[in-house]
């Protein structure tokens, strides 16, 4: 890291300058922070206070009614479980598939390696919004519509997994090859080298892959909307949009309670493991 000589002339600059900086940052931070806070505090309001004028952050009569309604109006516990287990399965498959492929593309010489790598990268280039039309027909033929299979299979092998393979390959390319040669002299085969030597060293890359994949499965919206029709199969993002009353009106406080339950656990993990999150999500810039 470079020393921050840049700042020297300004570091002890006028106080006014510093105050202006803080003022600008606080003003800019409002649209980033207030929606999340507003979501959380409003989820404890009774419906009558939701659109109170003037708006107030905190409720006069805080209640958990919206939370209990979230679980009775829809099979929300089930939907929560669906999201969790799908994201975990997808993450596990992706870590396995991408670390194998990333290792082979980085380390093993075989004819056609570069060409096949380009073929795999096509998976990053094609947006899922493009393949969803034919994929829907394919899964319909296979009798897998209105099951979790499309959400698991496509996410575990297509775009997020290809990004993972790319990250793993970059990591293994940078890994010193001497470690593996020593292991090879000890009689370890490729699989043993991958399993015993390389995977344990690849923890930083694997955690980046895990965060990226988990979040992309957790946030998936188009796919569940297209494939799933039974509420007990829904995932969270899709369930969140279904809290509407018989007239199609939004049940705001229930929706906000459900959204809070979806968002807050992820935010908490993010606050704990910030550095890993920021580093791994910066990779998603590769995909856009």
């Amino acid at each position, binding site marked *: 890291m470079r020393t921050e000589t840049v700042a020297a002339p300004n570091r002890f600059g006028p106080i006014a300058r510093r105050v202006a900086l803080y003022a600008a940052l606080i003003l800019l931070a409002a649209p980033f922070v207030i929606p999340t806070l507003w979501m959380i505090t409003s989820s404890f309001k009774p419906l009558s206070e939701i659109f109170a004028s003037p708006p107030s952050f905190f409720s006069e009569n805080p209640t958990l009614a919206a939370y209990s309604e979230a679980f009775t109006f829809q099979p929300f516990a089930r939907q929560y479980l669906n999201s969790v287990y799908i994201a975990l399965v997808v993450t596990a498959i992706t870590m396995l598939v991408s670390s194998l492929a990333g290792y082979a593309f980085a380390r093993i010489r*075989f004819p056609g390696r570069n060409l096949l790598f380009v073929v795999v990268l096509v998976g990053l280039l094609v947006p899922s919004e493009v393949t969803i*039309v034919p994929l829907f027909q394919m899964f319909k033929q296979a009798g897998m519509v209105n099951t979790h299979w499309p959400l698991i299979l496509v996410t575990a092998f297509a775009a997020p997994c290809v990004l993972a393979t790319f990250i793993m390959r970059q990591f293994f390319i940078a890994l010193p090859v001497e470690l593996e040669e020593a292991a090879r002299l000890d009689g370890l085969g490729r699989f043993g080298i991958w399993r015993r030597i390389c995977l344990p060293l690849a923890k930083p890359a694997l955690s980046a892959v895990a965060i990226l994949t988990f979040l992309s499965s957790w946030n998936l919206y188009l796919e569940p909307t297209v494939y799933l029709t039974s509420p007990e199969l829904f995932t969270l993002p899709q369930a969140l949009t279904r809290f509407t009353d018989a007239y199609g009106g939004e049940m705001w406080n229930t929706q906000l309670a459900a959204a809070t339950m979806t968002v807050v656990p992820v935010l908490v993990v993010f606050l704990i493991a910030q550095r890993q999150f920021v580093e791994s999500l910066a990779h998603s810039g590769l995909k856009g």
Partner: protein
Amino acid sequence: MGRADAATGYLFIAPQLLGVLVFVVFPVGLAVWYSLNEWNIFTGDMAFVGAGNYQAALEDPQLPSVLGATAVFSGGVVVLNLVLGLALAVMLNRRFRGSVLFRTLFFSPVVVSVVAWTLVWGFLLQDNGGLNGALAAVGVDGPNWLQSGPTAMIAVTFTQVVRSVGINMVLFLAALQGVPGELYEAARLDGAGSRTIFFRVTLPLISPTLLLTAIITIVGALQSFAQIAVLTEGGPGLSTTVLVYYVFQQAFSFNDIGYGSTLALMLLTFVMVLTVIQWQLRRKWVFYED
């Protein structure tokens, strides 16, 4: 090891390669085939119509409006996102009390589920919602944001930017760290003010990152389905119906698989051209990759 090793190589990449072939390459081929056919969803019959769907696209009275909305949305997102992302990175590049906290705050929407984020904004943007309530408190009569075309477009653009600008901020911060401190000193010794330094030293040096993030941001904006679907459903009228949402409507709401596929391939073409440019540029200027 030789041949056996090569076999292991194929074995290792097989799941990923097959996955891409089955779930990406083959579907794209199918989409091309669908786009050449007229599909009757009720009888299940397909009739080959050649360029018929492409002809239909040229004559579609809604398509110009959709492409216009796509351009306004993507353009708005990229300009706002880069300006804001760069401004945040410049302000937070130096360490001061609270700088880490602010970085965390600006990055936090990135980890929030798109649907949840958009729902909350939809709630805030109601006519009697939090934003207009806050505006009324300072004596401003806010518009009904989601019920008129221009303000709805502003709303989807703004919410998309606030959700995703954290990524660009991080990429810009990395780029700013890469500018050698000696250059700043030299410029300062030459008597350059901070504005001159920013436009003459910083900006040119980080321009590769600027260009790359611009493309990444446009590609991301072209794929913003959830934001539009949740906030405006493409409305009012067609005002926020961008291409990706139009594809979904044609294919899944109107069950027009052939035309939907044609539009999807149009989207693919846009994304492909941009991504190939990005990869070419990346090869030339690899700055923040580790």
